[in-house]
């Protein structure tokens, strides 16, 4: 079966390309916890998971991680796997220690009330790819 990707709502073109964090922020009505000045960075792909081993196994460098977990290991995982940013979904906010760690690594943290399913869905629809469509 061939899956036809949805078209970009503005350009009308199939946009399997990188997405700026600023665009992620807008699409998910997200708040920036840290890294306000780093929103021009681009996510190479999206990854939605609450298990960090999954992120470590499948995330590529530059991935945007969407997760409902908010502990320090999420930031560690992003650091180890060279992720571009973390967006906490389902309205959960990380504690001060976690934010501090992200700040020290220059890792942007976003926060949205939108649940995981809706977050992944919206970003995918706007052209952010997943790992199977990720071009090396």
């Amino acid at each position, binding site marked *: 079966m061939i899956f036809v990707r949805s078209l970009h709502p503005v350009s009308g073109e199939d946009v399997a390309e990188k997405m700026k964090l600023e665009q992620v922020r807008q699409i998910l009505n997200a708040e920036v916890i840290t890294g306000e000045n780093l929103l021009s960075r681009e996510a190479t792909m999206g990854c939605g998971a609450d298990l960090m081993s999954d992120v470590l196994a499948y995330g590529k460098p530059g991935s945007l991680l969407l997760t409902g977990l908010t502990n320090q290991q999420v930031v560690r995982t992003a650091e180890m796997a060279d992720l571009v940013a973390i967006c906490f979904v389902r309205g959960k906010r990380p504690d001060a220690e976690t934010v501090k760690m992200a700040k020290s690594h220059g890792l942007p943290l976003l926060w949205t009330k939108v649940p995981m399913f*809706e977050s992944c869905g919206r970003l*995918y629809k706007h052209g952010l790819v997943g*790992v199977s469509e990720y071009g090396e």
Partner: protein
Amino acid sequence: MKLAEIVEKLDLAVRTAGGRLGREVTAGYASDLMSDVIAHAKPGTLWVTLQIHQNIVAVASMNELAGIVLVNGREPEAETIEKAEAEGLPIMVTPLPTFEVVGRLYSLGIPGIA
């Protein structure tokens, strides 16, 4: 949308309760945390996760979910299959990751839980 249609459109492999695909899917939920699903998933929800432990069957049945999609090529454990068959709970598998399965479900018009 009927579960059977989703199975066909997303090319999912059905592992349990193949006779129960006539169910209507009302929404989607993605989480790997049991406590989250217990708290938020509603009847008729299709649950996307990479958890394969038998606990997923109990959580899904308790909440009357429409079915479970296991991602990243993960296969249900033997006990999970046994319990799901007994409960008549469809479990499907896909090699795709959560982000893409959800993206495609969403593009098909399956909404998230508000």
